[in-house]
């Protein structure tokens, strides 16, 4: 007879409850901050944040459009977490991926799918550095990632500014501080809307197949982690590097492989975002926020690839809502809620650990009695 697991031992349920708790606490603290700084408009502001995403097909289209890169950045961070690595460098990998995609689209005039492959190559290339530094020189991947985020941003500025053909000014526009609009430079590189999606969101300019690609990526990553030996090895290294090594797993190789895949995912995110045709890459002064937003997405999902789909939709949803909180509040207000969620996630692992420990003790006592 198959025994049913008691509720409290169901790890997935505990994770889900912990995530919902941290979302609620985040919303509450966000509301309190808004209430303190601008009491008159706080309720209206929160209503805008929580209500906008579903208010029209166009807005929901925007939620899906932004959720796609968030989902991939979340997958990137989460995948590295599974191997015990903190990929704070998703931002840099995302930036390099975006550059590779745009270079392919505008300079090589490639179709969109080839540009996406290039984006993955670019992200993987940038992800290999933290992996190599960790594996061969034992340099903490957090430090390498932070440095490479800034190197990526300045490098891409430098490369774009010195590639006349990629600039908007080469394609009939006047600005030379951004890449060309894809509609003018290479319409074939713009992601297709997809037959069904276009029907569903008839009026939305935002919608395209990026969300489908992102969800497929999540399923593939889930499969790799749960159903393959390779994924098992990566997780083994994440749980205990020494034990994995003792079992004959090449831990250094796993670290590099994990970072390369994480980089490819973040790079793909950059490709999806900039190949939508709605935005141009403008020379940046600070590291792009998208990669960092992958961190709360991964944490909320407890690094589970399938959970990442939902946490990305949630983060995207409140971000779209946040941009309609103006003029009373700046759209950055949403980041307060996100920061609380990250903060709580920092010791969510610990809380889960405590629950498991308590249960183990109870069992021990029962066994003794």
């Amino acid at each position: 007879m198959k025994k049913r697991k008691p509720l409290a031992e169901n790890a997935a349920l505990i994770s889900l409850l912990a995530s919902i708790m941290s979302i609620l606490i985040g919303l509450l603290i966000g509301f309190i901050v808004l209430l303190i700084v601008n009491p008159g408009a706080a309720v209206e502001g929160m209503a805008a944040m929580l209500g906008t995403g579903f208010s029209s097909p166009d807005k929901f289209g925007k939620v899906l459009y932004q959720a796609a890169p968030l989902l991939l950045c979340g997958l990137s961070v989460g995948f590295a977490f599974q191997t015990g690595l903190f990929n704070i460098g998703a931002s840099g990998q995302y930036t390099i991926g975006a550059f590779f995609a745009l270079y392919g689209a505008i300079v090589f005039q490639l179709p969109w799918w080839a540009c996406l492959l290039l984006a993955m190559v670019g992200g993987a290339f940038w992800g290999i550095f933290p992996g190599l530094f960790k594996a061969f020189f034992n340099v903490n991947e957090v430090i390498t990632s932070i440095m490479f985020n800034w190197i990526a941003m300045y490098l891409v500025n430098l490369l774009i500014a010195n590639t006349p053909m990629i600039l908007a000014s080469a394609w009939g526009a006047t600005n030379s501080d951004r890449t060309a609009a894809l509609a003018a430079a290479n319409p074939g590189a713009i992601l297709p809307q997809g037959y069904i999606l276009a029907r569903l969101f008839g009026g939305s300019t935002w919608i395209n197949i990026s969300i489908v690609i992102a969800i497929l990526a999540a399923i593939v990553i889930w499969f790799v982690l749960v159903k393959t030996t390779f994924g098992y090895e990566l997780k083994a290294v994440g749980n205990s590097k020494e034990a994995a090594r003792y079992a004959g797993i090449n831990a250094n190789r796993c670290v590099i492989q994990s970072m390369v895949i994480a980089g490819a995912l973040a790079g793909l995110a950059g490709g999806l975002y900039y190949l939508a045709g709605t935005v141009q890459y403008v020379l940046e002064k600070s590291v792009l926020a998208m990669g960092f937003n992958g961190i709360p997405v991964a944490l909320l999902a407890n690094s589970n690839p399938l959970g990442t789909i939902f946490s990305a939709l949630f983060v995207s949803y409140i971000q779209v809502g946040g941009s309609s909180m103006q003029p009373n509040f700046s759209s950055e207000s949403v980041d307060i809620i996100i920061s609380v969620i990250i903060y709580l996630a920092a010791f969510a692992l610990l809380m889960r650990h405590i629950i498991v420990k308590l249960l183990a003790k109870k069992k021990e006592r029962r066994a003794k009695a």
Partner: protein
Amino acid sequence: MSLFVNIISLTVVFAVPLMLVALGGMFSERSGVVNIALEGIMIIGALCSCFTLKAFHTSGFGPKFPQLAMFLAVLVAAVAGMIFSLLLAFAAINLKADQTIGGTALNTFAPAFAIVLTWAIQGQGISTIQIPSWIRIRASDFGLTNLNPIIKTLFFKYSYMTTPIAIVILIVSYIVLYKTRFGLRLRACGEHPQAADSVGINVYKMRYAGVLISGALGGIGGLAYIVAVGSGFNSNVGGYGFLALAVMIFGNWKPFYIAGSAVMFALFKVIAAYHSVIPFLPDLGSLKEKSSLYQMLPYIVTMIVLIFTSKKSRAPKAEGIPYDKGQR
């Protein structure tokens, strides 16, 4: 010559925030807590002290006693940074949370909170807090009227109280870290907390001290950054918190090495901003966005140095690992 002197004084004023914040990071890491929240701490310190300066300005107290007002603003920055860093200390020390994730949370919170508060106080859409001009130390404050122009540029063109304070803090940091009982205990907690505990040192207390010192120095560093840039506070500190991490690593977690590398990194920043008027730089032809190249160099140099020094790195051995009394 005047350009050269100008570069020197600019380098000093930009090295000050880097050095202060990197020293802060050093105290935290030497106690065993990785502090990647330095960027956020700088923002909170700058936010609170800029509002303080603004209040002094409108009340008339500031223009009357400029340096006293500035000194109070520095204290506000330090206290604000300490209070904010308590969040990291609590998560990292009491709750044994992942220090990097906790730091990321603080870094996400700070700029968002700064914008929300700035809008609430100054009005919607006004994101910049202007800083008053009286905070600068002038030659005339010392009764020096007809100075040699070179000396004047060197010492008084960009002179703010944060610079002498930073020099004092550097010396005090060295003494505290290497010549006091407190410093020895702090370092022990970052190297081998179990051993420290076994001889009666309260590891939690020492780590709290390390994080709080980094909060104070990070907060002052935030204000120092704003006065160096000079165009007001705009809810960010331009990545200086992260650059300070690089300075700390480059400085091998040692005070005077950190001071040296802060000066070097600041020089890169100044060259990036003024490369078009500096004659002795290599000619890069028609390369565009040269400033990005110079901005990128310190990060690349740090990575190269890490390759060569990682085998004998002086990084505190126990940094990033939560201390658990029960663990052996």
